[in-house]
């Protein structure tokens, strides 16, 4: 796990005590994966940046309540993934609201999917899944949590996590196979 271990606990304790350099170490250790994880769920660079930034801001707010004996990564990743799911759902809702009578003057660029085109077959295959399925894939294969850990993070039955992973793998299989050929 990124940043796990003694160093990370020392950074958390240092950050709680007011050490800006320890806080920076935590940020630099965790931002790249947090941003990548968010991007793979929301499929939008600006959205991923918003999600990762808000997750870190939430972490700053809760830093003093955090138990420094626990690993920081799972705590942050849980915030990132849940916010990314919320962001994606909200985007879908925005599209629905956009069709309502109360909304006017929607610019042309606001009517379509704001996601940046994703030419990569793997990402396209990922995009065909629901945000909840994408979140499970990202937690399993990018952030490397076990199905049991994912179940606890997302408050899901373990069987649900396994079935989502299976379905996701089926979807990804074809695209990865195509790339390898």
């Amino acid at each position, binding site marked *: 796990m990124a940043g796990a271990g003694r160093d990370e606990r020392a950074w958390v304790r240092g950050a709680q005590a007011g050490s800006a350099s320890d806080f920076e170490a935590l940020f630099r250790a965790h931002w790249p994966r947090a941003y*990548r994880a968010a991007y793979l769920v929301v499929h939008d660079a600006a959205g991923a940046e*918003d999600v990762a930034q808000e*997750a870190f801001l939430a972490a700053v707010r809760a830093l003093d309540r955090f138990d420094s004996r626990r690993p920081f990564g799972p705590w942050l990743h849980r915030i990132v993934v849940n916010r990314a799911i919320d962001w994606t759902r909200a985007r879908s809702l925005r599209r629905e609201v956009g069709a309502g009578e109360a*909304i*006017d003057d929607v610019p042309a660029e606001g009517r379509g999917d704001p996601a940046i085109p994703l030419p990569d077959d793997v990402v396209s295959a990922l995009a065909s899944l629901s945000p909840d399925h994408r979140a499970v894939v990202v937690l399993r294969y990018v952030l490397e949590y076990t199905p049991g850990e994912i179940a606890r993070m997302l408050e899901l039955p373990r069987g649900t996590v396994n079935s989502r992973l299976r379905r996701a793998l089926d979807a990804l299989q074809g695209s990865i196979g195509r790339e390898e050929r």
Partner: protein
Amino acid sequence: MSDRDVRDALLAVRVPGELEAQRRGWTVVREAYATRDPVPRHGRRLRLVVAFAVLAALVAAALSPPGRSVGGWIRDRVAGEEATEPALVRLPSAGRLLVVSEQGPWIVRHDGSKRLLGNYEDASFSPNALYVVATQGRRVVAVTPEGDVRWTVTRPTPVSDARWAPSPGYRVAYREGETLRVVVGNGTGDRLLAADVAPVPPAWLPAEGRTVLAYADTRGRIRVVDADSGKQLWSADPGATPEQVVWSANAGLLLVVTAGRRHPLYRADGRPAGRGLETAQGQDVLDAAFAPRTREIAYSVYDAESGRSSIVVGGERIQQGEGRLEDVVFSPNGRWLVTGWPEADQLLFIRLPGVSGYVVVPDVRREFDPGGVGATEFPRIVGWCCS
């Protein structure tokens, strides 16, 4: 296909703008960390007790007659044709909102997504919303909507109320103590414009290419000056302490909101324009604006005796609410007006003319305070730009 194949494929995905995003993210997060208020460990038990007491008080308040009254009013007014969305979903009209919370200014894009620009105390848009000018302590900062700092001016003492001149945006005015200063739109040429300035945000005449500025001095006079030559064009005594200075969008009228009952209106050349606004005894104007493309004045007025606010547009009361309706901000096309409603923790978008529709955004404190518990100050809406 092995787990490793999937992992390698996902880690090989190119994520656009990774480094820039990290740099911007670090700027914002570092400032949030630097200005956080650490909770002493021995205070945590006390905090729990206080939190429980506050929760109990809130529950009691919600069940009390005034609490029910607020809730009932919201239901009465909002139920039916108006839609309450679970979150800030989408702006009902084109443009971007600028909202300032305790954490700093946020850009809310048309699709409802939002970004914190940094730990600043005050902010306003540049003419086409390409930049935001913000202040924090002794610094005036120009920042892009993505959060990149373009320039900074640092003064010896705290600064506030930075306002960008209209298109092409060659000047920015701001206050430092009792002085008014102007800096070129690229952050150079910072200089003193006026002394003895009251704590009221200055207002640029919204005429393209002009650099005319209205401000209030410490004796309560309104002064209108050419910011480049420093020449005073006219001045007037509004009769009571000025609190807000507002130009109409066509640059033809200047409204001065005062602490008194009379709020005079002037023509661009300084001559009085009719009677202006008058409010009743015990009423405070909380915010005022001219509707875009018209001379209609919109304002929110709070009545201390009833504890209610009203929003009035063109002389017609279009909205009432218990507590304060803090802001009066028009959409760029003038068809929507948004106000902040702290008592209901909502943003209220009102469709004009009359009230032909609402969009209600709940949980506003939490929305603009990631990781918080919703107990922060209610955010201010400071701009909606541009179509």
